[in-house]
């Protein structure tokens, strides 16, 4: 067993940490106030990331990228997790599902995405279909060799900045003993395609400035050339390429928790009540002990899951455990950090109320905690015939 980082991995971690501290932290207050990322700032962060060779570092060397493995990429995202989601969105990490591009799609979507020339977003969720993706209503029907799409997607992150969106759409239905089952296809949809609108979504309590958008399809015509992967092969591309994305939530939760922890530790060591540092009270010090223990546990769980992927081992359950535990840990840690700060923890003089709000979504997106528990338990129980 090997627990240490290599020199390169340590340098990657240090470089991204310094980048986040110098290029992201100073702008966070502005994003909180306005809920918008100024265009020039977005471009600046993107250009710096490109210049540093970190843009699309989750993509392989064959497309001109750094080809980091899952563990190394988790380290990058762990450090990014410390900073504002709205801003670190421009430390671009396109969806690696784009590796499924074929033929002209490579020059139209994959290459511009990894070079930072075009930004992507990914859309599955609908108002009526969240955890139950197969319940989607957004449908593409065959018409004169093309597809005609109607329906609505919501909660689509980053679609405000996206030049194109990878959209999962129902392309048919199979009758099974358990009832009808949707066939699903992934499509590449360009902003500006007639019949396709991207509009503002809801105001979220978490991650101000990292907007979620609504996508509307109204008799939107898409040729076959826009199909990513195979027709009716949506679940296949999803399983191949989106399998690992839950690690993102886990590792970013760990990074953010460490940032929050440092605030709590400092405050416990400095704030005095009843003539002594509050850290001297066991009620506070034990909270500190529990926080760091949980953070370290989540960190190890996450890196171990990433490491399994690199080793080519099945990791579905381990990724689900990491996503579940790290996101729930973050909620507990941000809550405890506010408790340690007392009333000041709730005031926007400190970023703690923001971390607390931001933490909430981690237990919901990319599969809710309940869905992760479902994945974990199903894998164990199904093997027992239950």
């Amino acid at each position, binding site marked *: 067993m090997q627990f240490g980082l290599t*020199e390169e991995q340590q340098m990657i971690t240090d470089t991204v940490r310094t980048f986040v501290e110098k290029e992201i932290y100073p702008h966070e207050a502005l994003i909180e106030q306005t809920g918008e990322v100024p265009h020039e700032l977005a471009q600046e962060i993107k250009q710096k990331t490109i210049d540093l060779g970190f843009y699309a570092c989750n993509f392989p060397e064959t497309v001109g990228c750094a080809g980091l493995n899952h563990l190394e990429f988790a380290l990058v995202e762990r450090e990014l997790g410390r900073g504002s989601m709205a801003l670190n969105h421009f430390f671009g990490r396109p969806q690696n599902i784009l590796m499924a591009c074929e033929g002209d799609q490579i020059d139209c979507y994959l290459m511009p995405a990894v070079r930072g020339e075009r930004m992507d977003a990914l859309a599955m969720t609908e108002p009526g279909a969240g955890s139950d993706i197969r319940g989607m209503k957004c449908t593409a029907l065959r018409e004169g060799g093309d597809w005609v799409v109607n329906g609505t997607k919501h909660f689509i992150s980053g679609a405000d900045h996206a030049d194109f969106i990878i959209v999962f759409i129902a392309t048919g239905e199979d009758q099974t003993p358990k009832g009808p089952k949707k066939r699903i296809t992934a499509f590449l949809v360009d902003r500006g395609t007639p019949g396709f609108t991207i509009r503002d979504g809801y105001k979220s309590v978490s991650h101000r400035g990292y907007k979620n958008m609504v996508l509307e399809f109204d008799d939107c015509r898409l040729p076959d050339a826009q199909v990513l992967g195979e027709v009716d092969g949506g679940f296949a591309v999803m399983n191949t390429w989106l399998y690992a994305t839950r690690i993102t939530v886990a590792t970013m939760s760990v990074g953010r928790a460490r940032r929050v922890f440092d605030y709590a530790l400092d405050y416990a060591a400095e704030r005095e009540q009843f003539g002594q540092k509050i850290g001297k009270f066991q009620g506070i010090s034990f909270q500190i002990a529990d926080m760091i223990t949980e953070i370290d546990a989540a960190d190890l769980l996450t890196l171990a899951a990433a490491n399994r992927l690199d080793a080519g081992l099945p990791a579905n359950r381990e990724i689900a455990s990491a996503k579940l535990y790290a996101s729930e840990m973050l909620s507990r840690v941000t809550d405890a950090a506010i408790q340690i700060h007392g009333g000041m923890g709730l005031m926007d003089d400190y970023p703690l109320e923001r971390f607390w709000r931001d933490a909430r979504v981690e237990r919901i997106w990319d599969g809710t905690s309940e869905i992760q528990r479902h994945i974990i338990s199903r894998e164990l129980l199904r093997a027992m015939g239950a």
Partner: protein
Amino acid sequence: MKVLVPVKRVIDYNVKVRVKADGSGVDLANVKMSMNPFDEIAVEQAIRLREAGKADEIVAVSIGVKQAQETLRTALAMGADRAILIEATDDVQTDIEPLAVAKLLKAVIDAEQPGLVLAGKQAIDNDMNATGQMLSALLGWSQATYASELDIDGDSAIVTREVDGGLQTIKVSMPTIVTVDLRLNEPRYASLPNIMKAKRKPMDMKTAADYDVDISPRLEITATTEPSTRAAGIIVASVDELIEKLKDAGAI
């Protein structure tokens, strides 16, 4: 021209420094260590000279514990061409004194024959501000300290120095030792491709014994104490009150 850049592994500038319970020094166990920020500026300047075609090789040297390899690897990832580690102690708490460092650097310089040594003006751990000057004396080379601008012009270096009264520009003959100040440049981040390449760049592993230099300490630290905490201030209601308080304190 070859540029030699000495780099020191020091406590990270973001770390809250804690004095050890016995007062013998600063606690360095389990503390984040980084390259001395002034040395980072020196590495950056060397890279800029190479990019401007005025230098062709950058050699980074570190003297200290084996872990200083990481510091050298950072210099390589920023863009240095090769590195030399001189292991001089195996105790992270031991600081090699400026004179010993200068003597070891002289030995490296005798072998490497660089045209320029670019060093930090001081290390942020002990703030000695002495190594560059001592090295200059040992070598009999010219020196230009506190550089905030540097230009190489044939056989001379034109250096703008940050001195108490303002800026002073001097011309020194090469080879020379320039110690760099904060405003000389803003060091780059190591790019991901360069981080990946750093591993393949050569690093010579030496020990102090290889150079036959006496590095035994000549200084004795008698006590290390925390800086005294600032007393709480007061808020005054008016300018008149402020003037009164300042008069009371004998400040005006």
